[in-house]
């Protein structure tokens, strides 16, 4: 459950959206892939020597 999405729509916090251009999408998609890679790194790190 979230903290009140409808309130979030009306809030005066300034920019709600992080932008709608392809570069922003590229940033977030790249971010997800980076999270994946950062996790995979732990597999060899945790391999028993």
């Amino acid at each position, binding site marked *: 459950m979230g*903290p009140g999405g409808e309130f979030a729509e009306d809030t005066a916090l300034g920019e709600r959206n992080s932008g709608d251009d392809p570069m922003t999408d590229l940033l977030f998609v790249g971010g997800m892939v980076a999270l994946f890679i950062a996790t995979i790194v732990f597999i060899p790190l945790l391999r028993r020597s």
Partner: protein
Amino acid sequence: MTLSGWVELGIFSLILYLLTKPVGLYLVQVLDADGKPVLDRVFGPVERLLYRLFRVNPKEEQTWQGYTLSVLAISIVSCLFTYAVLRLQEHLPLNPQKFPGVSPDLAFNTAVSFTTNTNWQSYGGESTMSYLSQMVALALHNFLSAAVGIAVGAALVRGIARHTSQTIGNFWVDLVRITLYVLVPMCTVYSLFLVSQGMVQNFKPYDTAQLTEPFTVQVPKKDAEGNPLKDPKGNPVMEDQKVETQSIAQGPMASQVAIKMLGTNGGGFMNANASHPFENPTPLSNFVQMLSIFCLGAGLVYYFGHSVRSPAHGWAVWTVMYLLFLAGVLVAWHSEASGNPRLAALGVDRRGGNMEGKEVRFGVFESALFATITTDASCGAVNAMHDSFTPLGGLVPLINLHLGEIIYGGVGAGLYGMIIFIVVAVFLFGLMAGRTPEYLGKKIEAYDVKVCALGILVVPVLVMGFTAWAAATGWGQAGLNNSGPHGLSEILYAYSSAGANNGSAFAGLTTNVPLYNTTMGVVMWFGRFLIIVPALALAGNFAAKKVAPSNAGTFPLSGGTFVALLIGTILIVGALTFFPAWALGPVVEHFQMTGSAKLYP
């Protein structure tokens, strides 16, 4: 604390106990490599077809590294898929309300949130998501993330149960069998039950109702291009707007709610989640929803005991979980039933307890019970607003999050989280007693303790680090609706909910801004997978060990001593890490509320 509450608590506990063994035995059939579930005649052909389609050899098992890679691969692919659907929903079908695409940061947050079984929602479902997004992008993860959790739990159990083995099962086989034999059939029956209770299940556009009592609100005045107007001082210009109609949301709710509860996902179709009458229509639906959160988690504990050939150990773990659950319920219930003494000082009748933020259909007990259950497990669905609980009532869900949601827990996640604590507890006992630590006939070595330590430390580091950052900076404070200790609790709860993959919210913090959406996405990802990776590494290491016969020095894994030692380890190692944060948030707030004016005016 009412008699009806005690009776309901007793019935709930009894049914949970009675469900544990049959559900556990069914899970044995599904998760055992040679098991043949009773539904094999129905789903067996589908299972074999899926293996052929995806070229999976069900007899071929994986090492822990291969298993982990499979878990991560399906998670990232499905995460990217969800991101794409949310961004493109305005161009996709089943969008009768013509909702626009979700903003990039919110799509990122939501995709990671549902991939990790968190289901944190920085949006209102009925005002943001199309039916396609709800059913395909989000419900997909409700099934997938639940199946992944159960699969990882099963892999760890296999690792403990086996000896001198290099493999811990086949992830793809586990995923298919859990989905086909457990989640799909159970959710189908469950959805029909929810529909029988009056829950909505349709594809209609939203209804519009004429209000019998229209009212007027003030809204920002906009120019012809839709930009808000401001006066010479820079303040927004407001105008009256008469409200004469109300939108009544529709949609495929029952099917989503069934897996939301059973899979301990928690993401609501509606913004108000299980407090909305469409999403929780009757007292019976409320009771069954609570029970279904614990159902598979409790069954998995029985499956664990059965698989390691020590049912008594399984029941001892079950008892630890039950005692921690009971303690949480009683504290939350008592705090909410006592209400707020400051209101009493103003002449408000407090006999009904603290009813702020609670659905009157459920009242104090049902709200306290639901809040405890949903945070014991990693569900996150709510039928009351945790932000409005008394400080100690709100502290209970917070503590549950900080314990790692190991009390029956998220499906699978609760079990592997608890096993990590058991290994640490046995290791600590070995140190105290001067014995070689040994668990179910296997020696615990430095490597095991290191991976367990990683699994335990990940969440505190993420939660405390990001909470400190948000609390100390403008962007973090900008979303607060409360100042003082309660404001800190709101930020702490948000990151705790994200790190523990719970998804419930304190409801007082606006997080639909780029920095909250992004940082919480990062916390959710690592809070999930940096525990799964060590858990599977532990599984691989345990599977490779030889079994040593038990002797007089072997620590007993059932009975009162084990239960007490495990509870002590969980509280000291798990919870006390967060004690300073509790002291600055809910504990101070409690003293402020109870009138210790000299100490905390």
